[in-house]
């Protein structure tokens, strides 16, 4: 596979300079490396700027409802576990409207990789606070500044038992692409929260702001992403320093394994033309 195999002809509708471009490049880079043909990859998204990404990569795409990417993705994986399933979603899409699906799909642990374009704002709807907007940030709706505590997605994911919890930065494409590869390699649900500057509506968390703060946690060889307590502390870190990298990782059995799906042909291959129910009908006599 090379870059042109994943080239989409769709015009990109993002603002010039948007952090989403970095994520798009990282995704493409990863897919090229992965070596699977586009037809065996499925990108699922909800609605928002982030969620437009699948249109800009040539892969199978299911661009669903705002907040509802995860149930679609998990079920697609269950129905055909030979597909590599990625979700590209926004902080509003995944943590706001879609919060319930996030917490339960972490528990469900299908082998999907979720990339959250976390611009700490609602981009497509023009700048309202998202669950990760920093406290005090003023918007047209939060006129007195945001009063809700921000959601800590990584910390929450660890608490819920996610097996792969990471944070990337859209400007560091190399690193982000590595994270996505690792996420895909990880057997089970992987959450990758990506710091993504929104040049139009987030005037606080800019490229500069992030660049000054991020550091690569896995550069420190003493950091053990399999140590849950250490991971909790890292996941909570937010302020002058913001860690990026694999924050937490642990092996667990996937849904597909537990239900014996991995071991057999995908459901779609089942013959359904003449399902013989006579044996069970006799139980209703």
């Amino acid at each position, binding site marked *: 596979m090379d870059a042109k195999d994943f080239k989409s002809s769709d015009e990109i509708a993002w603002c010039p300079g948007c952090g989403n471009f970095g994520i798009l490049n990282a995704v493409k880079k990863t897919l090229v490396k992965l070596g699977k043909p586009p037809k065996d990859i499925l990108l699922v998204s909800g609605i928002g700027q982030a969620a437009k990404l699948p249109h800009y990569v040539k892969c199978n795409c299911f661009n669903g409802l705002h907040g509802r990417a995860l*149930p679609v993705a998990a079920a697609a994986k269950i129905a055909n576990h030979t597909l590599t399933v990625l979700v590209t979603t926004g902080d509003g899409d995944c943590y706001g409207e879609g919060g319930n699906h996030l917490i339960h799909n972490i528990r469900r642990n299908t082998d999907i990789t979720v990339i959250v374009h976390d611009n700490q704002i609602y981009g497509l709807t023009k700048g309202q606070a998202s669950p990760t907007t920093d406290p005090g940030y003023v918007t047209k709706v939060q006129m007195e500044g945001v009063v809700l505590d921000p959601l800590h997605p990584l910390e929450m994911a660890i608490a819920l038992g996610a097996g792969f919890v990471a944070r990337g930065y859209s400007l560091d494409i190399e690193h982000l692409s590595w994270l996505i590869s690792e996420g895909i390699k990880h057997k089970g649900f992987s959450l990758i929260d990506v710091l993504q500057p929104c040049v139009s509506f987030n005037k606080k968390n800019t490229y500069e702001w992030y660049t000054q703060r991020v550091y690569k946690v896995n550069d420190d060889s003493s950091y053990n992403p399999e140590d849950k307590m250490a991971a909790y502390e890292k996941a909570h870190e937010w302020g002058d320093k913001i860690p990026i990298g694999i924050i937490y990782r642990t092996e667990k059995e996937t849904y597909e394994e537990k239900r014996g799906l991995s071991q057999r042909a995908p459901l*779609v291959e089942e013959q359904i033309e003449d399902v013989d129910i006579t044996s069970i009908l006799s139980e209703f006599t």
Partner: protein
Amino acid sequence: MTNELTIKITGEAGQGMQTVGAALCQMFKNTGFHIFANQDYMSRIRGGNNFFQLRISDKPLHTLRQKSDITVALDKASVALHKSSMADGGVLVLDRKKFTITEEDRTFFDIPFYDIATRIGGSEIFINSVACGVIAGMIGVELRSVEHVMEATFAGKSEEIIRKNKEAARAGYDFVRNNFKQDTFRIKAGAIKDTGTLVVNGNDAIALGAIRAGCKFYSAYPMSPSTTIMNVIAQYAQKFHIIVEQAEDEIAAINMIIGASFTGVRSMTATSGGGFALMAEGLSLAAMTETPIVVVVAQRPAPATGFPTRTAQADLEFVLHAGHGEFARAVYAPGTIEEAFYVTIKAFNIAEKYQIPVLIMTDQHIADSYRNIETFDLNKGKVQRHIISKEDSKNTKNYKRYQFTESGISSRAIPSWIEDVIYADSDEHTEEGHITEDADVGSKMVEKRFYKKFSGLSQEIEKPTAYNVERADIVLIGFGSTYGIMKEVSDAVTDKKIGFIHLSQVWPFPASEMIALLKDAKKVLTVENNAAGQLARLLRRETGLQVGGAVLKYDGRPFNLDYLIDRIKKEG
């Protein structure tokens, strides 16, 4: 109206009325009776008052009677609660000693259930089996039939348990033979040979239909009265390689079946009104992305939580219009157990053919009611696939998921089978499935999803069932679970000719058929378990015909034969 009986077993939730009921259904069916049984239960697990009502006859049955001939009270509270709903000459079977009831009543038939059960089995849990024996004895079923059903009911349990239950039943049976001298209830089955082979309820039939239709992915969130569909499918899931996944909520459930269906797998969910409300957005998604799904809406009284375990037909208009935007859908409303099975298979075929959401409307009454039926005809219930086969996939290039066609239907490829990629999109999109802002493409897509598919669907509507309609004095019209009651009313009323029309498909609406059927009708009444007369409104909207009235019932309880005859008489 001879040669039939209504038997009621009543007690607290948790006393096992359902087990007795199921055993009796089996026993009577085996001994050559036609049966119709339903449950009335409260939204609680223990206590309160539930009952199982069973009607038996030598003729096929389709509905309930208002009063029962034999009422077996398993707790004291039931005695007072059910005395008033006894038929003339009816008997109330009770355990006077246990209930410390001293007053006399000519309808009482006293049986020391508790003493018998504890004497024989050492525990009051055998009361249910005693009761089976009692009923068999009163009606004159042979003892071996009771014993047989005990064996079937407790199959898989220890020999001792089976033996004790058989003995308990026999003790009840003997007690009746010795102490109950009336012959009143000794009815004979008419045509023993022809009472079919199955005893199923509506939810069973839908679950079986789904399995037969090749459903491979079922996701739902529990909600009465739809939950047992999930139970039945789950029971056979391993055998048939079906994934049953309980979702975190109804929104997840519908989005999951859409995700699974996108990969080519037949998928289904079921819920009730409140859960369906949460699925409305997903329904619209299925339509927009042209992903086939089947959704069962098992109605119960609402608004909001309403009467969680009772029956209603009040979501017709909601189901017809649920989801934002305009798109084609098919809505079935099976009237019988058999229809529930066949229509479920058709629902999957139609959903796949038109790539649309298809709805099956039922209600608690049909979901939980049992009837004896002939086994399903598997030649009638056949899968028709409408996807690009794996074979043909190899040659599919430059695929356009939403290609414009005459029929509105674009050929449907399966991800990873074809060499190309597939874009499905919830935004308005081009033929390729990419987001568009183009006005012309937008309106052509509306025409594709709405006009064209609708026109195809209109060619394959399930025709309404018409019975006794010609020159009838009154024509009844209903949808869904009221088939049975209309049928029996039509047969039972003799001083007037009462015909009926039943719709097992309410959308697309069979407008021309209805106009033809009703053109000479003298008086037309809809029969509906709702307050608005929703079917009457739909009929008027679609045909201009205004009915002479609507017989409505909205107290959470189904119609019964006596009640409806009465209501119709009042309507004149």
